[in-house]
């Protein structure tokens, strides 16, 4: 027991690592917020474009969605950060992470939003159009408000997954929470910073886990 407390919950080590962890947490929060926002917007855009039923566009969107649902996200991070420079696109670490999270997240959000849009009877679109509303108005004042109920549970669960995925930015050495914890673990020769990082993630994400379960229970029936 003493060994566990000394190694995993060492206050002295924690005090020395606190500044690094705080810096990392800030990067993690910024990264999570920005990439979540962009992924949702991009996913929504793709879902709406798919509702237009343009055959060429739909094939492209299907290929995009399938490809990035199949490719492990850690590989995507590496492709963006290590291989895009060969194309002449050198993004800094932070933006590589944002782009990778957005590309990956948008593929999942597209599917979620599409399922939501398709859950609304097509007759409603036709009715709205017949009343003189244009496509954008139909979408925003008729279809999307109704689709929210179908979309909310999977979208919340997917947001949780996306925030958890920000950890992978440590692989391209972005100094987010996990990376900072690993650095502190190395320099202080104690696993306390790793345990601290795990606990920070737990405190941050537990409410979302509960919310996901609650929404699935409430709207799932």
């Amino acid at each position, binding site marked *: 027991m003493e*060994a*566990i407390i000394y*190694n*995993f919950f060492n206050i002295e080590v924690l005090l020395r690592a606190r500044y690094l962890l705080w810096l990392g947490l800030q990067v993690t929060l910024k990264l999570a917020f920005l990439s979540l926002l962009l992924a949702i917007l991009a996913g929504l855009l793709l879902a709406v474009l798919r509702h237009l039923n343009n055959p060429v566009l739909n094939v492209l969107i299907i290929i995009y969605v*399938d*490809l990035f*649902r*199949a*490719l*492990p*996200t*850690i*590989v995507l991070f*590496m*492709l963006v950060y*290590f*291989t895009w420079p*060969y*194309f*002449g696109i050198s993004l800094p670490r932070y933006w590589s992470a944002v782009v990778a999270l957005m590309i990956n997240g948008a593929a999942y959000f597209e*599917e979620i939003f599409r399922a939501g849009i398709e859950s609304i009877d097509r007759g409603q679109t036709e009715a709205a159009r017949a009343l003189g509303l244009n496509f954008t108005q139909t979408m925003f004042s008729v279809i999307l408000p109704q689709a929210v109920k179908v979309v909310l549970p999977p979208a919340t669960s997917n947001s949780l*997954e996306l925030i*958890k*995925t*920000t*950890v*992978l930015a*440590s*692989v391209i050495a972005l100094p987010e929470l*996990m990376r900072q914890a*690993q650095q502190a*673990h190395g320099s202080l020769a*104690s*696993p306390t910073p*790793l*345990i601290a*990082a*795990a606990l920070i*993630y*737990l405190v941050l*994400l*537990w409410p*979302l*886990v*509960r919310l996901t*379960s609650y929404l*699935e*229970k409430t709207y*799932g029936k």
Partner: protein
Amino acid sequence: MNLHDLFYYFFNYKFFILTLPDLLKGLVVTIEIAALSLILGFLWGLVLAVIRVMIKRPENPLVVRLINIPIAIYVDVLRAIPPLVTLVVIYYALPFVNITIPRFWAAVLTFVLILSAFAEEIFRATIEAIDFGQIEAARSLGISYIQSMISVVIPQAFRIALPPLTSRLIAITKDVSMASVIGVADLLKKARAAQSLYANPTPLFSAALLFTLLFLPLVRLSMRLEKKLAE
């Protein structure tokens, strides 16, 4: 960049052939970790779900029902903490308290723990969705509680659980590539090593291609399952 450069860097046939045998060796390791994690995580999740449903019955004494709390915490913690963090903690932090697990098994343990947490939630929700009258009917026919669970409830629950379960299985299998972070010689690790060695990103692209070929059929299958069972 002209077309020649593009082929030189990304689809370099020479490097592709040169590194392919090594990448395939890595792919086998990836598949081994994935298969072990899926089978064990799936079964362990099912066991946890059945335990939880059984101890939650109101006729049980309070002490028995309290076992629910540690299982609930186990499930929530593993669902909240990112997989990479769990993996790093198991591999790098546990040795400090004299628990040393080899890389390969640290990866398997991590993904078994995480999958079991998600599978438990899915199974429990579906077992609870089965009308309790069915268990009562089975019991009144003289079948024991455990027997009615195994032959009446679980087969039905399994069918409802299949779509969410498949997408979770795919998600976990994709996460297996994180094992490269703790130095497991899997596909991604081999690709990164080859990329550094030849200063050419072709191996990384080959790895991405192999991963995609592996998962694309699964993704399609899970979408089809979801559609079919939603009807």
